[in-house]
């Protein structure tokens, strides 16, 4: 399991809610494409990775757990 999927599960965020957050940040991939690169191991470009990491980190802010998900340049 990749770091994004692990973080998604830890944040108890459904793939659909993650997709909505990703779209809200400016992402353009479909729900199926998002699912492929978050859970399915397909390669994501750095920008899509950072959009998903941001969406997850904002969820963790709501949960009071800081911003633990690494961005592309931190991997």
């Amino acid at each position, binding site marked *: 399991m990749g770091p994004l999927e692990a973080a998604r599960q830890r944040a108890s965020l459904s793939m659909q809610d993650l997709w909505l957050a990703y779209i*809200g940040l400016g992402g353009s991939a479909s729900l199926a494409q998002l699912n492929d690169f978050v859970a399915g191991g397909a390669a994501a470009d750095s920008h899509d990775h950072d959009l998903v990491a*941001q969406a997850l980190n904002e969820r963790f802010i709501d949960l009071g757990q800081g911003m633990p998900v690494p961005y592309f340049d931190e991997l």
Partner: protein
Amino acid sequence: MSGVDEGGGDLSAVVRELAGVVLGADPLEAVLDLVVSLARETLPGAKDVSVTVGDGDVLTTQHATSEDAVVLDHVQYGNGDGPCVASVREGRPQNVDIEAMTTRWPEFAEAARDRGVARVLSVPLQARGATVGALNLYAANPDAFGPEEETRARLFAHHAAVVVANAAAYASAEARTAQLLEALESRDVIGQAKGIVMVRERCSPEEAFDVLRQVSQRTHRKLRDVAQEVADAAAAERRHR
């Protein structure tokens, strides 16, 4: 159904009325209002009725005939137990008088006693093989619901479940739309801020996103809030020009 028609309204008429609900034509509140008022008609011993929706993890009271019923439902959600919670979890009716409540759920029993409730009957609402919630009947008389009434309540719940499941699906579609609108608003503000950064820094949209993202990361603020600030500052600058 004559065997279960004594002591309440005509159950088959009630079922016909439930079957006549057209989703979308009646507002959600009206549908649930109909369900609880028909429940009260079917089980006249119930002084308060509520409908809980959820699959066990997250339960919410979608509709209730009184504030007392809302409070009694919420005491159970808070404790993670009680007749309603147990009926959803176990998928079978819970029919308890005040004595049984006191033994099983003392905190809930106290709240019930405070509100003049001496008998609770919670029946799971099951549609398409899954439990979608519960119908909760609160009575003042400890003997309000015997085996006869329980059977009536189960039959009623059997028909009401489909209506409630559809209403819940409809509500979740509406909530989805609201979330999507919120996402679009956020996307719009972030798009504005990216445009401003692109002009200032002569950079690509992805690089502009990175600039905003790094501010968010440094300050532990959401990107949308950072973007709003950038957009507001640019608007203020424009006014002072």
